[in-house]
């Protein structure tokens, strides 16, 4: 069980403390309620660019990393379509160093032209390296707009195109910061062998005087239900043909999220899973195959993707995957198979929660989702899922009109 204590500063910053007496390290995690979904369609990639800028120096501290490293710490961050998350790990006796650094960049960034120029170049290189020059790197740049026609999930975190990053001005950056990086738009979680009194004291000292800037009030129109099957085939310089079949499903906060997760595990978690056993081991149609859910906070996806073996056609690949999905729609799921995926989930969860960092991040995510009271209920939610629940999920989700398929054909 993950324990926590919670308080809120006058400026709206929500602070949670998780005690762990077993480690000499502490974690400070700040989750900002801003992601790629908050960007305008003509200026995408900003949330991610901003994540980089947050390491480019703040109003009173020229460099973020050096003082943290001097205190024995390290840090990193990530952005996705829903949120932006920053975290620091350091010896617990130096916890105040993280408070000093994080509070100063929440107060105000340095906004130097040099920092913008450097980080813009870094992000553009990342775009080229990871999304344009890497085999299968552009898959989600193609698949997202195939699935989403109006919702901001139609672009990836890196952005729609490089020009959006190239054209970012200092005014854009400042406006983004003051709109989204206020204390009342963030959740801070501190974990380690200290006390809630100490965390309160440090929070008041370093974050207490940062002015509120307003919480992010987003009002996004949900993507309408898909009404027709969609397909896209592209040819790329890749080692083998690959297929990506994406079905729309419920978002992270819906019960469907958990049913979909177990359904994906039945299909592809472990070597005894259905897709691995049938399509890799027995029929030798794929070299890799996996099923997974996206867990988006606005809308979810159930994805089956795989690399085809030489000589296997896309038609065969699609038919064979559909056959396996059809079995889930029709057949009763054996109790042992259900116990198996629940056991797998439980093992994964226990190992994941060994890490203080993962526990702290989980608290931050559940608080931001407004579901903190459900933080320790995850196992129960998986445990109650029945064979009928999975069959109902499959009947609802695995239908033609809800499917978008991307086929990446290898250039000969």
């Amino acid at each position: 069980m993950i324990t926590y204590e919670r308080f809120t500063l006058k400026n709206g910053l929500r602070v949670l403390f998780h005690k762990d007496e077993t480690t000499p390290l502490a974690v400070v995690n700040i989750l900002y309620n801003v992601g790629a979904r908050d960007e305008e369609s003509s200026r995408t990639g900003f949330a991610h660019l901003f994540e980089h800028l947050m390491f480019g120096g703040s109003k009173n501290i020229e460099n973020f990393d050096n003082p943290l490293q001097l205190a024995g710490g390290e840090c990193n961050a990530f952005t996705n379509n829903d949120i932006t998350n920053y975290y620091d790990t350091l010896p617990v006796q130096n916890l105040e160093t993280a408070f000093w650094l994080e509070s100063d960049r929440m107060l105000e960034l340095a906004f130097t032209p040099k920092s913008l120029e450097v980080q813009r170049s870094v992000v553009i290189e990342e775009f080229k390296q990871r999304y344009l020059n890497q085999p299968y790197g552009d898959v989600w740049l193609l698949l997202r707009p195939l699935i989403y026609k109006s919702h901001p999930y139609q672009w990836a975190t890196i952005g729609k195109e490089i020009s959006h990053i190239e054209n970012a001005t200092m005014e854009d950056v400042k406006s983004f910061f003051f709109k989204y990086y206020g204390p009342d738009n963030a959740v801070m979680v501190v974990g380690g062998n200290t006390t809630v009194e100490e965390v309160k004291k440090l929070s008041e000292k370093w974050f207490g005087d940062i002015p509120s800037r307003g919480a992010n009030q987003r009002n996004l129109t949900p993507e309408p239900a898909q009404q027709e099957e969609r397909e896209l085939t592209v040819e790329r310089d890749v080692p083998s043909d690959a297929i990506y079949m994406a079905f729309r499903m419920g978002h992270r906060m819906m019960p469907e999220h958990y049913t979909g997760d177990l359904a994906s595990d039945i299909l592809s978690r472990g070597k005894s899973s259905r897709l691995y056993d049938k399509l890799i081991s027995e029929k030798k149609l794929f070299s890799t195959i996996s099923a997974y859910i996206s867990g988006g906070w606005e809308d979810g996806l159930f994805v089956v993707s795989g690399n085809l073996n030489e000589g296997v056609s896309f038609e065969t690949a699609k038919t064979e995957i559909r056959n396996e999905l059809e079995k889930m729609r029709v057949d009763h799921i054996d109790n042992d198979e259900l116990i198996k995926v629940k056991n797998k989930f439980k093992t994964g969860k226990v190992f994941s929660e060994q890490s203080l960092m993962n526990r702290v991040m989980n608290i931050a995510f559940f608080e931001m989702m407004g579901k903190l009271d459900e933080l320790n209920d995850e196992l129960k939610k998986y445990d109650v899922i029945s064979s009928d629940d999975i069959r109902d999920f499959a009947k609802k989700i695995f239908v033609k009109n809800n499917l978008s398929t991307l086929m990446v054909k290898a250039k000969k």
Partner: protein
Amino acid sequence: MNRTIAPPFKLAESLSLVIPQEIKLENDITLFWMKDVKDDSVKLDIEWFAGTKYQEQKLAASFTNKLLLLSETQKIARAIAAEMDFYGGFVQDDCDKDHAGVTLYGLRENFHAFFKF
């Protein structure tokens, strides 16, 4: 408050490491038991002096290591995978210049089942 001044910090004076208990089994295998880890997980590492420096043919070391969990005298690969998965277990194989080995991850409540493999 002057935000340009860093708070004082100090380096760790000591580190407490989890030291394994060493147990000699009857067949001369040495078991290192990390008994002070307090949660429901179990991780079993089995290591052999069977890394690539001992191989006479390329890939012999890693192929042999991978074959360990593909079949044995009583069970074929599919049955091993099914049982391992049923008990919520995860497997990883590793091979470097000196050692080859497999790691089994699982829950304490199910781990007795893994020893059969």
